[in-house]
Each structure stands twice: as structure tokens, then as C-alpha cells.
């Protein structure tokens, strides 16, 4: 058994200059997690426009129902497209770092956990940058 000691609050962010890569990974995983769960509530709220759209076949066929017009209205905004790219970056990092954490939980790659964090960052950046053209297609058109 290891000896127990008082480590204090690990969320003492005033010590950020002393943080190792594993700590930054932990902070970023938490930060991206907060954004994702916050977004999920917003997402379901916006998609709830489906309740007002359902049943009105003429408007649905014409693409003039409240669900379609709300989503397409939002997608017409440059700010929403930028936020979507940000959301992609957040989701990709959370997924990659999550896989890293699952592996570590399984006892795989603990000795390389700092390297796998850097790889998560680089792959997140690459996927995000490569996705910008797709996310910006037809904005404001």
C-alpha cells in the first residue's frame, strides 16, 4: 500500500506554472467536457423545434416548417459556423484524450501518457484545420 498524504485541492489553478502535460490533459478534458454537456442541452432545445414542425406536411414539403427555417437560419450565420468549428475541435480532443484515458485505465501506455497527450493535440488541430472548408461552405449564401 502506498502512504497517504494530504495533496490539497488538485484544482489549485494558481499553481498552473508547475503543471505537467498530464495535468494540462486533465484540465482540457474537463474544460471540453463542460462545453460538450452544455452544448447537449442547447442542442436538444434547438432540435425541439421539431415538435412545432411535425404534422404540417405542406410546410415540411416546402421546407418552410419551423425546424427547417430555424436550423437553416442559424446555419446562415458566420458566428454559428465558427462556433461549430470550435465545437468540432472540442469534441475531437475530448474523444482522442478520452481514448487515451481509457487506454491508461486498461494499463496501456501510462509511461507514454505525455506523448499521447501531445499526439491528441496535434491530431485535433489537424482535423480541425482540415474541416474548416467543409464547415464554412455556403455561409451567408
Amino acid at each position: 500500500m502506498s502512504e497517504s498524504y494530504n495533496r490539497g485541492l488538485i484544482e489549485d489553478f494558481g499553481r498552473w506554472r508547475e503543471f505537467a502535460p498530464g495535468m494540462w490533459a486533465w484540465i482540457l478534458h474537463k474544460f471540453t467536457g463542460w462545453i460538450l454537456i452544455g452544448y447537449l442541452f442547447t442542442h436538444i432545445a434547438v432540435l425541439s423545434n421539431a415538435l412545432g414542425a411535425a404534422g404540417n406536411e405542406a410546410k415540411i414539403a416546402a421546407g418552410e416548417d419551423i425546424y427547417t427555417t430555424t436550423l437553416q437560419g442559424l446555419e446562415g450565420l458566420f458566428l454559428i459556423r465558427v462556433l461549430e468549428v470550435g465545437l468540432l475541435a472540442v469534441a475531437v480532443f475530448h474523444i482522442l484524450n478520452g481514448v487515451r484515458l481509457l487506454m491508461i485505465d486498461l494499463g496501456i501506455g501510462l509511461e507514454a501518457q505525455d506523448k499521447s497527450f501531445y499526439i491528441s493535440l496535434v491530431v485535433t488541430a489537424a482535423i480541425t484545420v482540415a474541416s474548416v472548408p467543409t464547415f464554412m461552405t455556403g455561409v451567408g449564401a
Partner: protein
Amino acid sequence: MAERYSSFTPGGTGWLLQRVTAAFLVVTLAFHFFLLHFVNHAYEITFAGTQMRMENVGYLITMVLFLWAAAFHGVNGVYNALVNQGLSGTPKRIVLAVLSLAGLALVAQGTYVALVMNGMI
């Protein structure tokens, strides 16, 4: 072995479910982003298109399970983050109750919306 820093209890149900939902969400979140931003584009989404996808029972079940897993994983994650931050006693019980209610409301509303999109309701 070094001191464990996690607030999760290894071997506990919450600890295990957080990891089981994580493994499921890795696949479903990636699939969701890929399908609705790269195969279909978000700016082209229409109710008719959503309805067509949701009428596929396999897709509907996947999306509902995705919602349930994400709601649990997110709410449980927030709760444990706050416990890590030092939350304890009565505030801890209040936060657990509020987060549980918010999570259940999210799951109920999201499932209802999915069933309406499917045409079942």
C-alpha cells in the same frame, strides 16, 4: 503505486458506467459529427431529411442510446468535477439532486423529440 487522484471509486458502478458510456460515445459522437457535417451538411438539414433518417429504426435507437449515454456521461462528469473541486455535505446532495433532475429532463425531452421525428408520436 502512487496515490489515486480520481474521485471515482474504482470498481464502483458510477466509475464503470462512466467508462462504458465513454467507449460507446467515442464511436457515436464521431459517427454523429461525420454524418451530419461531412456526409450531410448542417446547412442543408431539413425536417424532411431528419424525419427520413429517424424513420430508420436502427438509426433511431442509436440516436436515443447516444443521447442517454451522453446525458449520463456529461452529468456524472460534471458532478464528479465538482466533487473534485471540494463539494461536500448538503451542497453536494443538492447539486446531485439538481443535476439528476436536469439529466432526466434532458433525456425525457430528447427522447420525446426523437420519437416525434420518427413519427411514432
